[in-house]
C-alpha cells in the first residue's frame, strides 16, 4: 500500500503543470487566430461566438494532448507498478516519487497516463476513418444523386441495407478475432482504401486534362503516395516500413468506415440532387463539361458547408463508436489505453473503486462535446451567409 499522498490541490496543480505543452501550444494558436481572425475565413468566423470558441479550444486541447502525449504522461500506459494497485488519486509512487495524479487502476497502471495516451488512439483512428468514409460516400453519392435512375436505386438499396443493421450487431459480426483468419477484412480494406485514389485521380483528370504538364505531376503524385499508403495499409508490405497498421486495428478501422460511409452517401446524394437543379450546373452542362467535372468541380464545392458540419459531427460519432468497440472488448487489445477499453475495465468494478472510471469517461465526453459545439457553430455561421 501507499502511505504518501498529495492533497486535492496538489492533484489539480499537478495536472495543470503536466499539461504545460498543451497550454503553450493552445496559447500560441489562439493568439494567432485572434490576431488574424479576419483573414482566416470560416475558421476565423468561429471566434465570433462563445460556442465556437469553446469548441475550438476543446478540440485543440485533445489534439495537442495526443501530439505531446509522451511529454505529458509521467508513466508508460502499460507499465504496472504493483504497489499502486487501486491507489487513490494523488498517491506518490515510492520509487520515483512521481505522483499517480488520478490514481491507479486494478492492474496498477497510472490512470492519468492511460487517459493521455488513449487520446492518441482516438485522435488517429476517428478522423482517419471519417476521412475514408467521406471519400467513399462522396465518390458514390455524387453519381447516385447526379445520374439517378438505376445507379441510384442500386447504391441506395445497398446503403439502406447497411443502415438497417444495428451498429452493435455489425461490429459483433465484423470485428471478431476469428474473422482475421479470413480474407474479409483485407478484401474490404482493399475496396475502401481504393476510393481516395480514384477520387483524387478523377478530380485532377477532369480539371487538368488539357494541361498535361500539371496533370501528369498530380496524377503521378496521387498514384505514388496513394499506392504507397495502400500497399502499406492493405497488404502491410510497405517497402520503407513507415506505413504500418496492426491487423486488429485494420479490422476496426474497416468496420468503422463500413458503418459510417452509408450516412455520408445519403447526405452527399441528397445535396447533389438539390444542387444539380441550380443555374450554374445548367450553365456548365451547356458549356459541354463532362458529368464528372460538374460533379467534382461545380457541385461538390457548393455542398461543402453541410459536409463540413457533418464531418465534425461524424468524427464525434466515430469516437463514440470506437468507445463502443472498446466497451465490448471488440478489436482493440485488452491492455490498450483507449478510452472505451478503460471505461469497460473500470465500469465492472464501480462497486469497489470509482476513480479509474471518471477520467476516460470525462475525456471521451468532452472531446465529443467539443466536436459537437464546433459543428453547431459552423452550422450557424453557414446559415448566416
Amino acid at each position, binding site marked *: 500500500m501507499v502511505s504518501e499522498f498529495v492533497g486535492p490541490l496538489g492533484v489539480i496543480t499537478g495536472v495543470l503543470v503536466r499539461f504545460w505543452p498543451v497550454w503553450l501550444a493552445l496559447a500560441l494558436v489562439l493568439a494567432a487566430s485572434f490576431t488574424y481572425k479576419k483573414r482566416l475565413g470560416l475558421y476565423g468566423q468561429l471566434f465570433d461566438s462563445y460556442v465556437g470558441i469553446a469548441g475550438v479550444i476543446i478540440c485543440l486541447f485533445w489534439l495537442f494532448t495526443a501530439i505531446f502525449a509522451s511529454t505529458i504522461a509521467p508513466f508508460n500506459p502499460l507499465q504496472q507498478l504493483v504497489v499502486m494497485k487501486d491507489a487513490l488519486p494523488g498517491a506518490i509512487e515510492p520509487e520515483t516519487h512521481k505522483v499517480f495524479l488520478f490514481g491507479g487502476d486494478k492492474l496498477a497502471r497510472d490512470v492519468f497516463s492511460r487517459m493521455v495516451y488513449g487520446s492518441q488512439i482516438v485522435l488517429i483512428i476517428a478522423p482517419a476513418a471519417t476521412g475514408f468514409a467521406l471519400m467513399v460516400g462522396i465518390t458514390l453519392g455524387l453519381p447516385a444523386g447526379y445520374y439517378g435512375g438505376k445507379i441510384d436505386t442500386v447504391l441506395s438499396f445497398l446503403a439502406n441495407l447497411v443502415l438497417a443493421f*444495428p451498429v452493435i*450487431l455489425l461490429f*459483433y459480426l465484423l470485428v471478431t478475432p476469428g474473422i482475421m483468419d479470413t480474407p474479409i477484412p483485407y478484401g474490404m480494406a482493399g475496396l475502401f482504401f481504393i476510393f481516395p485514389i480514384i477520387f483524387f485521380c478523377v478530380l485532377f483528370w477532369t480539371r487538368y486534362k488539357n494541361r498535361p504538364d500539371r496533370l501528369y505531376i498530380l496524377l503521378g503524385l496521387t498514384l505514388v503516395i496513394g499506392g504507397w499508403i495502400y500497399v502499406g495499409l492493405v497488404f502491410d508490405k510497405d517497402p520503407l516500413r513507415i506505413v504500418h497498421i496492426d491487423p486488429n486495428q485494420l479490422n476496426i478501422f474497416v468496420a468503422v468506415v463500413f458503418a459510417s460511409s452509408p450516412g455520408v452517401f445519403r447526405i452527399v446524394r441528397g445535396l447533389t440532387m438539390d444542387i444539380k437543379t441550380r443555374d450554374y450546373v445548367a450553365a456548365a452542362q451547356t458549356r459541354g463539361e463532362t458529368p464528372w467535372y460538374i460533379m467534382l468541380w461545380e457541385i461538390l464545392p457548393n455542398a461543402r458547408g453541410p459536409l463540413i458540419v457533418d464531418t465534425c459531427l461524424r468524427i464525434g460519432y466515430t469516437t463514440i463508436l470506437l468507445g463502443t468497440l472498446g466497451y*465490448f472488448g471488440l478489436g482493440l487489445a485488452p491492455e490498450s489505453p483507449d478510452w472505451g477499453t478503460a471505461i469497460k475495465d473500470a*465500469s465492472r468494478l*464501480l462497486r469497489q473503486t470509482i476513480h479509474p472510471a471518471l477520467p476516460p469517461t470525462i475525456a471521451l465526453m468532452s472531446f465529443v462535446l467539443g466536436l*459537437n459545439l464546433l459543428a453547431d457553430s459552423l452550422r450557424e455561421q453557414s446559415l448566416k451567409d
Partner: protein
Amino acid sequence: MLFFILRRLGTMLLTMVCLTLVVFFLVNLEPNLKKLAISQTEMHTSAEQLEQWLVRHGYRQNFFVRYGQWLGVVKKAPLINPDTGKAEQRFSFCNDPTEPVYSGVLQGDFGCSTKFKTTAAKRLFPALGATGILMFWVLVVMIPISLLIGILAGMREGSRTDRTLSVASIATTATPEYVSGVIFTVIFASWLGWLNGSAASASQGITFYNFTLPVMTLAIYGIGYIARMTRASMVEVMTQQYIRTARLKGLSFSSVVIKHALRNALIAPFTVIMLQFPWLLTGVVIVEVMFRYQGFGYILVEAAGNNDIDLLLGCSLASVFIVLITQLISDVGYAYLNPRIRVQ
C-alpha cells in the same frame, strides 16, 4: 398510398432476406464454426473430432441448403447417424424433427440455441418482451422531456433559454450510454446510494430503485437529439406568416404557440423519434450489459460471444425487423400528418 406501402413492404422483405443471408454467411465462416465446435465439445478435442461434431450436427451441409432450411423453404432433413443408420435429432434439447419437414422461420421455428440449450424462440421472445418494457419506460421519459425542451428552446429563437437549452442538448448528444451510465452509477449509486447500480433484480419485478438508472441512461442520449430537431422545426414554424397573422390579430403568445405552432412543429420530431429506434437498439445492448438486465441486448451479446448461430440469426432478424418497420411507420406517419404530402 396503398401502393406506396406495398412497395415499401416489398423492399423491406428483400432487405431482410439480403441481411439475413449476410449474417448467415458471417456466422458460418470457418473460424466461427470452429469456435462453436470447441465451445460445444469437451476440452482438448482433436481437430478430427471437432470436424466430426460439425458434420454430425449438419454444419457441413451446403450453405444455401442450410439457409433455406433456416428460412423454411427447404425441408429440414434429420441426420442419419453413420453408426446406427437411423435418423436422429440434431440437438436433443429442442426436439428437432426426425422426419423431413419444412420447419424454418416462415413456419415459426427459430432453431436451436446452442448456448442456452433450448429453442431459440424460448429465449428470444421473453427477452424481447423484457426489452420492450425497458423501451416503453424510456419512451415515456424521453418523448415528453425532449419535446418540452425543444419547444421551449424554439419558441423564442436566440433567447437565453434557447442558448442554455441548446447547449444542454448538445451536451447530452455528446454523452454515449456507456459514459452517462458510468457517471450516473457513480453519482446515484456509489455516492448518494439512492438507486441500484444493477437491474438484475428487475426481471422479478420492476421498482423505481432498480429500473431508474437504465431508463435514465438510455433516455438521456436520445433526449438531446430529439430536442434539437424539435427546436429546429419549432423555429421554422415560428417564422411563418400565419404565426405573425395570429400575433397581429391580438392572440396571446401562449395561445399562438399552443394552438397554431405546436401541431405543425411536431411533424418533424415524430419522424425523428421513429428513426431513433436503431440508435436505441445499440443503446439497449450497452445498457443491458452495463446494468445486467436480461433482455434482448443481453442475449445478443451472449449469442455473438458464443457464436450461437440460430439465436444470433433470430436476434438479427428481430432487430432488422424493428428498424425497417419503424422506418415504414415514420414514412407513412409523416405523409399522414403532413397535409401537403397527404393530398398528393
